């Protein structure tokens, strides 16, 4: 099988993803440790027993670090999927309908682009209480405009192509044409945006957790950073490792997103 030419950066990014997933799958069965288990080893620096040290309640930072993969990856991928879905529906509807519908939908899209996403997300989560599903819904509600704009542009272009008229002549309904013929041909650029959205969602979740807007019963990298902030001067290991994890994951998403973007649209690669 020939591998797609998405560039070395994108492969590095995929390797980072794979590394985190492997850690998450392998570490708990191998060590049998509980990331939430308390111990009397309070604020211990990294050592062979505690690879990344322990926090103020004697919990193992490495085990928490590994457990944090779950939250970040779940939020990242779920939010990116939801964002893409909303964006595709809105963009395809606007582009295919054209005319007044297009104008109104695009105005609404512009409005959503102006909303200060992070502030509104923080306000909503602060008022409604934290929770993973809520965070995903909030991100999906606020982050879809770029996807919608790209899909709309593609749909506008594709619906004028001859093959669409050919399908129409075969007697298929407009809904069928949009769903089965136009959208599948228009979604390619969305993959790049969706990968970037994974990174943005992980960053947003971590930022909200850093501000204390996270579920206390879940271990997340942002939450670890938030707790680590109080012990920054005495226990550097609590926040250094989860921060590195967020950085590497977002970097991986950006690498993969750029790689896919260049692969899907080779004309843009030269610049």
């Amino acid at each position, binding site marked *: 099988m020939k591998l797609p030419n998405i560039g070395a950066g994108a492969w590095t990014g995929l390797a980072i993803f794979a590394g985190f997933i492997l850690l998450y799958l392998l570490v708990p069965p191998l060590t049998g440790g509980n990331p939430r288990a308390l111990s009397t080893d309070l604020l211990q620096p990294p050592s062979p027993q505690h690879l990344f040290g322990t926090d103020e309640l004697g919990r193992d930072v490495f085990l928490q670090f590994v457990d944090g993969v779950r939250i970040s990856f779940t939020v990242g991928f779920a939010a990116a999927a939801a964002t893409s879905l909303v964006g595709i529906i809105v963009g395809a509807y606007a582009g295919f309908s054209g005319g007044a519908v297009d104008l109104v939908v695009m105005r609404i899209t512009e409005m959503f682009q102006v*909303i*200060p996403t*992070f*502030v509104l997300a*923080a306000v909503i989560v602060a008022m409604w209480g934290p929770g993973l599903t809520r965070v995903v819904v909030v991100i999906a509600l606020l982050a879809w405009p770029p996807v919608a704009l790209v899909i709309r542009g593609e749909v506008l272009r594709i619906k004028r192509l001859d093959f669409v008229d050919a399908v129409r002549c075969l007697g298929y309904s407009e809904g069928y044409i949009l769903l089965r013929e136009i959208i599948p041909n228009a979604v390619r650029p969305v993959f790049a945006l969706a990968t970037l959205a994974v990174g943005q969602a992980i960053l947003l979740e971590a930022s909200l957790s850093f501000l204390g807007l996270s579920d206390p019963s879940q271990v997340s990298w942002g939450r670890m950073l938030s707790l680590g*902030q109080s012990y*920054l001067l005495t226990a550097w290991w609590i926040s250094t490792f989860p921060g*590195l994890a967020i*950085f590497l994951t977002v970097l991986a*998403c950006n690498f993969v997103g750029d790689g896919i973007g260049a692969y899907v649209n080779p004309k843009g690669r030269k610049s």
Partner: protein
Amino acid sequence: MRKYFFRRLFWGLVTIVVIVTVNFLILKLVPGDPVTALIGEYPAPDEYIAQVRVEFGLDEPLTVQFANYVTNLVQGDFGYSFANRKAVLPLILERAQYTLQLILPGIAIAFLLGVFLAVVTAVRRSGVLDTTVSSIVMFGYSMPSFWLGQVLVLIFAVGLSWLPAAGIRSVRVQPTGVAGALDLAAHMILPLICVVSFKIAIVLRVARASVVGVMHDDFVTTARAKGVSERAIMWKHVLPNAMVPVIVVLGYNLGHALTSSILVETVFAWPGLGTLFVKSIASRDYPVLQGILVLATVMVVAGNLLADFVAALVDPRVRKSMGARRGE
């Protein structure tokens, strides 16, 4: 041109109205009785609850409450912060000045340095400098600003003891005059690095792509054929023609100036709007949160409008495309 501007202004105002409405509805849809939020979860006599309800207009229908809310907003009354015992608007404005003190130099540095590096790397594409700069850009773009802040504190404040870890002024001795300015500068360096690292990544990316695009235009070949030096071609011909996307990003950044440093301020205990925002989240001070959201939206709309307007002023092609759009 003027028609275009007014149309944008109109849609900007519509956006603000929509946000204000959403803002109002979010508060109304919050689970729980607002009276409980006002008086706390104490057993209170029914007459007192009824009195509070009337006092805050909570007995009125939703539409009347909304009308009151909007009227107050327009008159500059953003409500009262119980946690700070102060009216919301003066509180926000007071904190905003500290935020701007940090953000505006950050934006200036990011843009000057970003555009300069974009031009330099566009000329020598795929060179050592270009590769280095683009890796730094990728890193700056992916780095959570709050974590970068923590790492900087660990290195420069905890490890080397070169710079203060937090705050805006030294607490024990409070120098004035030149010493005071130096003290402020020392406190600003680390947060400023965090602010700049993310912004410069975006500026560089946009500016470099734009410069590279313009470099291949015909007029550049013409200038070269006329014997204009490469340096003059770059700075006098290419750069001005590549500025529009940069101006758009600048407008975006100015629009988000009030809220883009929330996380950095939290790390460094910078006494700006960000710390106020985070404190208000912790104390459930909804009027302050809403006030910040409304003000932030107004700023974003204004920033975008300003960018559109400036772009049209400096680049005749933008004016032309507006005319074309008007005719569609």
